[in-house]
């Protein structure tokens, strides 16, 4: 089992950050999410100031940070949450209401100049919040619930907190879904989970993928394989689809070398002929792919301005194997003989049936498959054609539905906002044609 404080290549589940590791920074309870790499020089911008991320190196994932006023400049400092229950949460019977609250902008007697002055004198965020509460004419009239809300709102502004999250399929999927859903084809975390389960992704299996969702799927599958088996990402034409999100996972060498790519043409061609031309092409492909992986920075350009965190992923590993190398000849041969153990497709712009009809024959018999699409019709057509051609059984199109709840004493209800669409998934099992 993995031990704390040890970061070696054999540990898949590190619990403590190290220099050069990829992290997800959650600012104020999910209000803002930032992908970052922890280096001595990387910074995070909160408000109008930049903060060094150096204090985060060597801290456990899941730890929180807040801003402290240093002698020279404010810095991020580790903050240990209390295990005491907060006051004000237990009140169930509430007599106060909002009849006496009038929105005339006169409730707060502290001006922004006063607050700036407090800051200049080195007041902590918590002290400013207490001062705001003390100078609010209406705070005491508010219900306990809205007092709590007021406190949280002020805390976010005057005492922001940064939570250090570990990048995983879950956290990355959620972050991308929130920030850049189009880059991951609007693949919601419950839909991603279904793909992994329905395709029976398990240790020592060889999974064939069409990942046109930025590498999120490739990363999620590789995470489940844990350095066993193989993820083979296939593509049409000569340019592999970018899989830059894979770099956001802190994969060790063992896992990286299990992530390979192969043009569809190589997987389909038979043992003889056409091979020579392919290897010429391959040369070209390697270059293209290296560029596409190298140049796609983990944070977006937009993000990069947010936090200067781009460093070479090789800084720690030296000459580490890169994820997404071209599949070896032996591997291709093995797959041609045995077939892949399952297939997952997440190609938002591709026609499902056109892919499935060429990819399904590459699977071994009784292999499960799962195809994600944002539109129903391509999957319906695909399912119908598979039924007609008797290529697969046990087929189903399903649409996941996910609702989050606010759970609080006497205030439990579904969240006011939800994602109303998680895409469609066609799943089934390939059968023996003979």
């Amino acid at each position: 089992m993995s031990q704390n404080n040890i970061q070696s290549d054999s540990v898949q589940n590190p619990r403590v950050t190290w220099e050069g590791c990829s992290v997800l920074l959650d600012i104020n309870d999910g209000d803002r999410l930032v992908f970052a790499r922890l280096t001595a020089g990387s910074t995070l911008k909160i408000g109008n100031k930049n903060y060094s991320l150096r204090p985060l190196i060597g801290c456990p994932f899941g730890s929180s940070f807040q801003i402290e006023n240093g002698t020279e400049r404010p810095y991020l400092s580790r903050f240990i949450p209390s295990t005491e229950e907060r006051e004000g949460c237990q009140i169930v019977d509430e007599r106060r209401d909002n009849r006496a609250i009038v929105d005339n902008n006169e409730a707060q007697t502290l001006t922004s100049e006063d607050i700036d002055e407090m800051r200049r004198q080195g007041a902590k965020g918590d002290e400013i919040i207490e001062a705001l509460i003390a100078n609010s004419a209406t705070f005491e009239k508010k219900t306990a619930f809205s007092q709590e809300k007021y406190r949280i709102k002020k805390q976010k502004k005057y005492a922001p907190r940064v939570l250090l999250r570990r990048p995983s399929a879950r956290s990355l999927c959620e972050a991308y879904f929130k920030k850049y859903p189009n880059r991951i084809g609007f693949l919601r975390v419950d839909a991603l989970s279904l793909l992994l389960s329905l395709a029976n992704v398990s240790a020592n299996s060889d999974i064939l993928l069409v990942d046109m969702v930025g590498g999120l799927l490739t990363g999620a599958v590789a995470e489940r394989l844990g350095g066993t088996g193989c993820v083979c990402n296939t593509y049409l034409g000569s340019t592999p689809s970018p899989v830059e999100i894979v770099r956001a996972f802190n994969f060790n060498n063992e896992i990286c070398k299990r992530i390979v790519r192969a043009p569809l043409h190589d997987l389909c061609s038979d043992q003889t002929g056409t091979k020579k031309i392919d290897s010429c092409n391959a040369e070209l492909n390697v270059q293209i792919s290296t560029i596409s992986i190298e140049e796609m920075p983990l944070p977006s350009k937009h993000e990069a301005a947010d936090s200067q965190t781009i460093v070479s992923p090789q800084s720690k590993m030296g000459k580490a194997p890169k994820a997404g190398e071209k599949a070896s000849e032996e591997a291709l041969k093995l797959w041609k003989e045995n077939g892949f153990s399952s297939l997952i497709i997440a190609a938002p712009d591709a026609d499902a049936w056109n892919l499935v009809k060429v990819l399904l024959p590459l699977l071994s018999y009784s292999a499960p498959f799962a195809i994600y699409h944002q539109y129903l019709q391509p999957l319906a057509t695909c399912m119908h054609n598979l039924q007609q051609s008797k290529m697969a059984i046990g087929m189903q199109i399903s649409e996941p539905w996910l609702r989050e709840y606010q759970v609080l004493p006497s205030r439990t209800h579904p969240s006011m906002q939800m994602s109303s669409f998680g895409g469609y998934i066609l799943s089934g099992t390939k059968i023996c044609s003979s």
Partner: protein
Amino acid sequence: MLCSDGEKKLSFCRSIKDGDLVIVYEKRDVMKAVKVCEASVLQNRFGVFKHSDWIGKPFGSKVLSNKGGFVYLLAPTPELWTLVLSHRTQILYIADISFLITYLEIVPGSLVLESGTGSGSLTTSLARAVAPTGHVYTFDFHQQRAASAREDFQSTGVGSLVTVGVRDIQGEGFPDEYSGLADSVFLDLPQPWLAILSAGKMLKQDGTLCSFSPCIEQVQRTCEALKSNFRDIRTFEVLLRTFEVHEGKMDICQGDEGLSVGSPPCKRRQRSSEGSTVQDSSSSPTIKAKPCADARGHTGYLTFSRLKCLS
């Protein structure tokens, strides 16, 4: 079901052997798990199937009965197993199972604690997720149920990844020997809040916990209990809507010009521009999809949280 030997490539191309577990598929909702035994037969509405005919055939094959009826023989997966296992308790299904495994961040090598074991539907998927180097310790207070689950895990081939214990987790908590070692804890108990303190002791820092409860009152009390030692407390409900696909002709209301007098102008414009294609599609069948009429409307609430980092 799982290949725990890294050297041996998992390949379904391997043929069915005496003693293998196969999933006999009649149709999507009629499946059965069968242990292949050379001398045995399977009898169903399609006739009598001799197991000896199955041996040597690849998984995924169609096999015939004495009367010419047929079934398919599939290799077992945790998803298929969930559909065929014998229900000794209410079980978890694919939507909840798949979501909670991702959300708990269970990966190969993880140490997972589960209670109760129930019918082992989730446990089988947990075992797949922690393989090849992790382990699932699952507890149920029901002696007989634990024994049946143990037998099932042997027959599905996940026995080496799962240890079934008989223990009342609500009453006694998890065994101290796993203190601080668990990556994730899953609770499916009538009063999960009684096990939260113990679960917190078992987990590593930032370790994940999930509690499954059908009733909102259970969720309410669980969330209260989680507040002191856990953060990121989030409750979800996850469901699946399934679709039917049919091929059929769509009647296009062609009508003559006289009929369209009262229809809105946009309709007429559409017809005039697409007139020829509309006529074509009226003669060729189209593929149509619609949601199935019946669905599972509620399974349970999934409450997730992570242990606070205190050091």
